[in-house]
């Protein structure tokens, strides 16, 4: 899908600029894109380095593990279909904590491992289970305390950190709303199944 979107951006843009006699602008824009990217990367890179440094300390001191443990009772409530003491719950909490602290690179491998472990519990291996979808909703709403990339792009603002709280509140509402929607759709899905039987 992204291949099609990317291609249509470029094709539509160039054709439109030819039709509106604006093609020199696009010609410089193509080259300038490279410079813009470098500028952007030089903004993101230091903030990311800083944050990964801080988070390494949280990892080494087992602070992240401790937070995961605190969250695990909540996760058990969110995932009622996972049996007691199954490894999925601890994988899910580790993934959520990694997302929460902006460790996107670390959270993806854990997320894939979680899916594998949820697949073991899944009765129909070709079809998504309820727990899997709930887990995906938790991931796609991307609840983060410190949005490092957005912060770095706002570095020239008068007060760059003022963006932290609104970002958190917005993704928190998305998470809560997403979980509620997930429950409603889950219930509908269960009803359909009973009719089939």
């Amino acid at each position, binding site marked *: 899908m992204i291949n099609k*979107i990317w291609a249509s*951006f*470029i094709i*539509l*843009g*160039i054709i*439109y600029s030819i039709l509106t006699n*604006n093609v020199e*602008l696009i010609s410089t*824009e193509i080259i*300038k*894109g490279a410079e*813009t*990217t470098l500028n*952007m990367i030089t903004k*993101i890179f230091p903030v990311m*380095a*800083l944050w*990964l*440094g*801080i988070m*390494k*300390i*949280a990892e*080494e*001191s087992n*602070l992240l593990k401790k937070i995961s443990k605190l969250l695990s009772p909540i996760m058990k409530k969110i995932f009622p279909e996972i049996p007691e003491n199954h490894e999925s719950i601890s994988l899910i909490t580790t993934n959520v904590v990694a997302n929460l602290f902006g460790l996107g*690179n670390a959270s993806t491998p854990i997320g*894939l491992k979680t899916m594998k472990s949820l697949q073991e519990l899944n009765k129909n291996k070709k*079809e*998504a289970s309820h727990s*899997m*979808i709930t887990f995906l*909703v938790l*991931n*796609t*709403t991307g609840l983060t*305390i*410190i*949005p490092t990339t*957005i912060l770095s*792009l706002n570095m020239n603002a008068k007060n*760059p*950190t003022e*963006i*932290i*709280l*609104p*970002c*958190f*509140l*917005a993704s928190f*509402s*998305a*998470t809560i*709303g*997403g979980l509620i*929607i997930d429950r409603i*759709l*889950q219930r509908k899905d269960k009803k359909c199944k009973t009719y089939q039987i």
Partner: protein
Amino acid sequence: MQNISNLILPLIVLIIIFYGVKKKVNVYDTFTEGAKESFDMTLKLFPTMLGMILGVNIFVKSGVLNFILNLLTPLLKIIQIPKEIIPLAILRPISGGSGIALLQTIIETYGPENIISKMSSVIQGSTDTTLYIITLYFGSIGIKKTKYALKAGLLADLIGIISAIIITKIMFN
């Protein structure tokens, strides 16, 4: 409200360093070791961002985007949403890279203090790349029937984007 926002980062840093010292971690060495990981991540990020900025730049600067958005203006005026944020709201769940590239273009065009930049930043922060996560996660274990996953994910995105617009209006107006 803004005071709380400014407190979050220092407070988290304080807690992490304090806890690290308490647990006898070599905090400074660990910090530099962690920071080193960013080299690799930045290198991987560069080609993705280069491609996305190329695409988004051509799309925005050629005027196609404005042409499409102008068709929507009457509707957006009624619900009082700036038209500039619409492309970001649509692209955010589809591609993380294009979301960041658009946000960068918006901040560069309007300046970081503009309400449109603030709103776009919060929209970008309100949710993650739903389509990518669903494809990657389900693909990795060979699930073909994703049932209501996409619906749930996209509806959650919609809630995130609407909340982002409301929250920005309350906090930055």
